[in-house]
């Protein structure tokens, strides 16, 4: 049964349907693995074996009662884990912060509700950068997550717990969120496939807000096929999120089995993504992947994203601005951390927030407060919004010439702990290739395309036009049918 840790979601689904394994057995398999391996990785920060097994039992019951019924989701009985940014009823939802160390959500996030509705079994909650602010998972109050490929390296962030857990086969799938690259960058650094959907495709209800106009939840798993199955369950209109898109439901797996989909596919290669700043090992792996795509019938064309150089500065105005306001609710009044001693109201606020938030969160609140202040708003916030529109226009023009855009996900493979944490700007530049898609609201994904320095995974990024997730997943899937990078797992954890 232990071979199931490497199975795809379709294989797990088939095994469950054929009663070769029960949801309870599957959950126990992963829970045992978590118990054994998580202490060395720190990917899970909340576990509740009884709750998990009860959910698995219910899934088995659903499959038993409704055997063969079309209403049963193929995901029923398959385990997954949630990034701790999603509210989960009855589970601690910390967002990686001391501020919410003791916060138990009284309700489920939309995404959690949808996946539970499909019968998926929740293994636990996953570590993350505090309030999703970080690219290395070093800002978590619960300690850093280690990269299963090399535990001296970061797993990326902010969905580092999700990435490490899947890479170590502690869960077959996980949810993540991506505000500036937080699904794609850790997926790349841990050798996984992860997708950030079009802004508005997945409801943000119950997902603790970092930067509301950029945040988007998405699936993380081993393959594009797995991500397509997960996205089917996650996406869809939700009246509780005003930015949720009211579109007919889509089957993201619909194109996966169509042959010859890459014939005539035009792949845009932004000149700005292939210049200086990218490590040579990353470049080599990405170029090799592109060569593979050409072999499969695709053509490549150079495109330009002239304003992409402005994406990091624009992002680091808009995201902190929204965050400074979004995080105001953590004031120690109604829930969350409250300082033990204070003389008056002002002190209660300042001490609770000073003690409850970590350094990176405070830095971003300060930046955001500053750029929204009277006299600076026009110079920073409004300018950044203008850049945002220019970046979106660049992509629109580029998609006149190509069907998808490809490039590196991250400029380097996973780096060592502490390598960038002393220099915020260096850290912020880790997301240089991913941020522009968030600013433009476009879907983006990362898939493994080889190994670089120290045998660490390299990610290939695919950026699609709005609502083009099905095509992107297909493009990634075709590549994964002829390569095996996505099936590799860290040697030491077998």
């Amino acid at each position: 049964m232990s071979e199931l840790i490497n199975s795809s979601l379709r294989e797990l689904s088939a095994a469950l349907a054929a009663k070769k394994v029960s949801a309870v057995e599957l959950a126990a398999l992963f829970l045992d693995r978590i118990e054994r391996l998580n202490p060395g990785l720190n990917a899970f920060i909340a576990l509740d074996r009884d709750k998990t097994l009860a959910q698995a039992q219910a899934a088995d019951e659903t499959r038993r009662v409704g055997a063969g019924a079309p209403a049963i989701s193929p995901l029923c009985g398959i385990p997954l884990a949630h990034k701790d940014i999603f509210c989960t009823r009855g589970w601690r939802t910390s967002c990686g912060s001391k501020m919410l160390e003791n916060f138990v959500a009284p309700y489920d996030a939309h995404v959690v509700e949808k996946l539970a509705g499909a019968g998926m079994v929740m293994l636990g909650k996953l570590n993350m950068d505090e309030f999703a602010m970080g690219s290395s998972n070093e800002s978590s109050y619960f300690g850093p997550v280690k990269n299963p490929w090399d535990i001296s390296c970061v797993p990326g962030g902010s969905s580092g717990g999700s990435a490490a857990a899947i890479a170590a086969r502690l869960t077959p799938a996980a949810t993540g969120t991506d505000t500036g690259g937080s699904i794609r960058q850790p997926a790349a650094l841990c050798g996984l496939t992860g997708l950030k959907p079009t802004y508005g495709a997945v409801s943000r209800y119950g997902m603790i807000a970092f930067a509301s106009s950029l945040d988007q939840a998405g699936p993380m798993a081993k393959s594009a096929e797995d991500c397509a199955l997960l996205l089917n369950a996650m996406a869809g209109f939700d009246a509780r999120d005003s930015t949720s898109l009211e579109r007919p439901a889509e089957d993201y797996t619909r194109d996966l089995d169509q042959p010859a989909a890459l014939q005539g596919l035009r792949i845009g290669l932004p000149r700005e993504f292939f210049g200086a700043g990218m490590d040579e090992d990353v470049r080599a792996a990405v170029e090799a992947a592109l060569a593979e795509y050409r072999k499969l019938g695709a053509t490549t064309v150079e495109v330009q994203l002239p304003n992409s150089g402005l994406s990091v500065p624009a992002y680091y105005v808009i995201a902190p601005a929204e965050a400074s306001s979004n995080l105001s609710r953590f004031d120690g009044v109604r829930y969350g951390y409250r300082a033990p001693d204070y003389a008056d109201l002002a002190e209660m606020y300042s001490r609770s927030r000073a003690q409850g938030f970590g350094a990176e969160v405070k830095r971003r609140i300060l930046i955001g407060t500053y750029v929204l202040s009277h006299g600076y708003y026009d110079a920073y916030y409004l300018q950044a919004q203008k850049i945002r529109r220019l970046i979106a226009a660049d992509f629109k023009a580029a998609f006149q010439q190509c069907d998808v855009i490809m490039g590196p996900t991250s400029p380097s493979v996973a780096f060592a702990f502490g390598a960038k944490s002393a220099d915020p700007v260096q850290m912020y530049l880790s997301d240089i290739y991913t941020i522009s898609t968030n600013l433009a609201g476009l879907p983006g994904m990362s898939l493994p395309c080889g190994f670089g320095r120290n045998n660490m995974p390299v990610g290939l990024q695919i950026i699609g036009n709005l609502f083009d997730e099905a095509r992107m997943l297909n493009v990634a899937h075709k590549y994964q049918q002829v390569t095996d990078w996505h099936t590799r797992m860290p040697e030491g954890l077998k």
Partner: protein
Amino acid sequence: MTRAAQWEVVIGLETHAQLQTRSKIFSGSSIAFGAEPNVQASAVDIALPGVLPVLNREAVVCAIKFGLAVGATIAPRSVFARKNYFYPDLPKGYQISQFEIPVVSGGGLAIRLGAGDTASEKFVHLTRAHLEEDAGKSLHEDFHGRTGIDLNRAGTPLLEIVTEPDMRSSAEAVAYARALHALVQWIGICDGNMQEGSFRCDANVSVRRPGEPLGTRREIKNLNSFRFMQQAIDFEVQWQIAEIEEGRAIRQATVLFDPDTGETRSMRTKEDAHDYRYFPDPDLLPLEIKADWIDEVKSGLPELPQAMQQRFQSELGLSPYDAAALTASREMAAYFEAALESAGRENAKPVANWIMGELSARLNKEGLEIAAAPLSAPQLAGIVRRIADNTISNKIARDVFDALWAGDGKDADAVISARGWKQITDTGAIEALVDEVLAANQKSVDEYRAGKEKAVNALVGQAMKATRGKANPQQVTDLLKKKLGA
């Protein structure tokens, strides 16, 4: 020259009208007043992590109604913004409001000043009206040095209505506030309950010497009665004039009115004012209002008081004063129109008089609203009709009114016939009566004949007394004069 004449008072008002929606502006919680603390506070209202606002379309309908009623422009696209500040009863740490692009801009209200011959009209221009959410309440009593937080009110929909600095006296400010108060109730967007805080005003007050630029203003917050508004503004004006005359400059400030002392006192000055760091709320899309939505709301809007006043004057010949009084509230106007329908348009003036006179006095005395009057509009119309056709006199009519008010009888005719109050109009009967009176009051007859014309009144009085008021006084008078003159 008096001191008042040397100074011009400049007032602008900001009014928060609580909208009569079923639920909150961004959540499904009830907004009913008076519930136990925090029972009407949902996950969204208490700002749990991860919750999101969803705009209540009913609140927008209220804003559109208001915009139409004041002749304002309704923005095809307006934007919700976050107003950021920390306060324990503000759960998100920001209030969702509208800042740069409000839903309603421009328009205005005509107000009437004074009464009778000295009455005049003035038009108060509105700057804007925008949608926003209310905060919760901090309860500083009953917690022994601690503060309780009640979030039932958090998220209640408000329309903030802002005027231009058009008003020049506390009387004008109160007249505007009253007109606005009547209008928001008239169009059904606010219950107008000032005690419960459904309608509260902030007054921006400054003074200047005529012709000079605007003076520095101070804002009096949370005026929740028209009397307090008048007192607060009057005090504030005198205070500001005294300060300036004693050589001190006015500093921009927010002040509170203390009804116990009748004084205003500074709460905070501009120096410690917040930087609210407004920015568009990324959780909400811009509010788009298309023309057909406006048309739909328009078709459901009642006739507005201003239009109704015009109609009462031109079609019914009522005075501007009567027309204004009868449109003081929609219930009053509805009563009048229902009575008119039953009494006939030729009786518009007497119907108006009965409503503004006897009926209003009685309602006032018993503390009732017109909608709760025990006497229905058709019943009142029945009385007026019987006066008009000489069935009863005005005096008897008041008795009929009392009887119907008390519930004795289904209509005027029933009361009149049950009590035998029908006026005696039979000429033969009246003639016999007059003869009796003349025979019994020789003294008055002699006086009259001696040239004292007023003596006839005594004779009329005797005749009326003998019929217990049922004779037609005019008929009796005419007949007496005829006989005396013979």
